């Protein structure tokens, strides 16, 4: 019988790592991620979890250690935030190019400068092209459940990719909520032991991460791309199986809410989805035809699903906690591209907010909805920046 407990996102992830039977953890502390690995260290010291905990000198070393452990065919975990993730950048590519199903939690935090410890998605969005599956979660329960699904999908023989679980710093990482913690036996039935096709074996030595000339380099990179497309399907399958076993579903890649007849659809990633859901409920109660599309998987990007869902709307508002400086929010660009070529496409408006820990309020989301209703011609490469006193009139 699953136990309902009062956990924050970090603790929920630590519980998931324990349940997944992770054998090696290597991490370097950084706010707001640290409590994940502190909790894991506590599990290990109490004998509740049989794992090797490698203390390292940096995030680069943390992921390098995870990579080394992963090639032996063991299940590994690490976690980081912001500057720590940036410091891992080189190793992110090594791990994905080597097709090692490492799972990492990213407690999202803004990038310095200005220095901040508060949440936005700039850290993980900046790592969009590193070949990692990126999943954004809405609450602590989803963090736990997504961690279990991340191992399932990442370790699938058709995928073999590392997975990043992104949770908004503090809003999710440090906020307690009721979380259902499944039983170990239930998780074991969902998540079989890891079987890598090529793992370290002294009887059959291989070179790990061999060099390749231009032709074969391209072949391996093409393979990575195919694996990402396979992950799109596997995310859906894993979510469906998870739902059947545990009774909770998040759509795998995207989660539409009240989108069927919506004239305006809000598009979000991460914790702000919860606030947007409340706004949608409030507006629906006033007979407003508004919907919400949560993007769970930013990579692989479920373009076809997004296109199908948004094609019926008159206007789409993308609200995101990142900026691709010099153009617009990264998610906004992706969504626009997914809608390209539609007959009578919806108007697309981009909104950047919640930067460096700024709250995104219900009032702001309601205002975004009203703005979209006005039918103003959207600009391109000129997103609306929320919370900027100087820019408010201009927009």
């Amino acid at each position, binding site marked *: 019988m699953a136990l309902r407990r009062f956990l924050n996102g970090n603790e929920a992830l630590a519980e998931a790592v324990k349940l997944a039977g992770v054998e090696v953890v290597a991490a370097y502390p950084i706010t707001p991620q640290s409590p994940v690995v502190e909790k894991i260290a506590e599990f290990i010291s109490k004998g509740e979890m049989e794992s090797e905990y490698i203390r390292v000198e940096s995030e680069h070393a943390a992921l390098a250690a995870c990579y080394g452990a992963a*090639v032996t065919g063991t299940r590994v975990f690490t976690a980081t935030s912001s500057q720590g993730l940036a410091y891992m950048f080189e190793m992110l590519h090594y791990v994905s*190019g*080597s*097709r*090692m199903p490492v799972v990492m939690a990213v407690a999202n935090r803004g990038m310095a400068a200005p220095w901040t410890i508060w949440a936005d998605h700039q850290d993980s969005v900046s790592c969009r092209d590193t070949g990692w599956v990126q999943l954004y979660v809405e609450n602590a329960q989803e963090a736990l459940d997504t961690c279990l699904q991340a191992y399932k999908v990442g370790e699938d*023989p058709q995928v*073999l990719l590392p997975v990043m679980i992104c949770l908004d710093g503090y809003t999710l990482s440090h906020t307690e909520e009721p979380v259902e913690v499944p039983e170990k036996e239930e998780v074991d039935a969902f998540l079989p032991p890891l079987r890598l*096709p*090529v793992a370290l074996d002294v009887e*059959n*030595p*291989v*070179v*790990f*991460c*061999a*060099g*390749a*000339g231009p*032709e*074969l380099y391209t*072949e*391996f990179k*093409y*393979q990575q791309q*195919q*694996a990402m497309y396979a992950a799109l399907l596997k995310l859906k399958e894993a979510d469906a199986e998870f739902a059947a076993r545990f009774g909770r579903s998040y759509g795998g890649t995207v989660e539409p809410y009240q989108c069927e007849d919506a004239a305006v659809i809000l598009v979000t990633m991460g914790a702000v989805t919860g606030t947007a859901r409340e706004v949608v409920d409030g507006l629906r109660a006033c007979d407003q035809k508004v919907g919400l599309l949560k993007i769970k998987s930013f990579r692989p990007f479920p373009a076809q699903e997004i296109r199908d869902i948004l094609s019926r709307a008159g206007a789409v508002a993308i609200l995101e906690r990142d900026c691709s400086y010099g153009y617009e929010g990264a998610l906004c660009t992706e969504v626009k591209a997914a809608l390209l070529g539609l007959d009578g496409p919806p108007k697309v408006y981009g909104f950047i907010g919640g930067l460096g820990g700024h709250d995104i309020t219900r009032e702001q989301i309601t205002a975004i909805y009203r703005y979209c209703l006005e039918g103003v011609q959207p600009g391109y490469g000129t997103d609306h920046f929320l919370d900027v006193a100087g820019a408010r009139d201009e927009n």
Partner: protein
Amino acid sequence: MPSATTKLPAGPHLPTPCFGATTGSWRTHRPVIDASLCNHCLLCWLYCPEGCIERGEKLKVNLDFCKGCGICAHECPRRAINMLEEA
């Protein structure tokens, strides 16, 4: 689309020589072991960063991968290995 990808492992993890590529041509000097001086202490085998010393009745050097760094010659306590310049 037919592609070599289907024959490749997931990730570039292969037995040597990977894709038939060798690195011996990078060498300017080649280690030559004097069997009359060698007592099989295997320090060269231990120190070789490329794993190019092959054990056996007589030690051999895998010249497909030896880059001629000279560590083996430097470490040999009996000076049984000489680095010979290659033409």
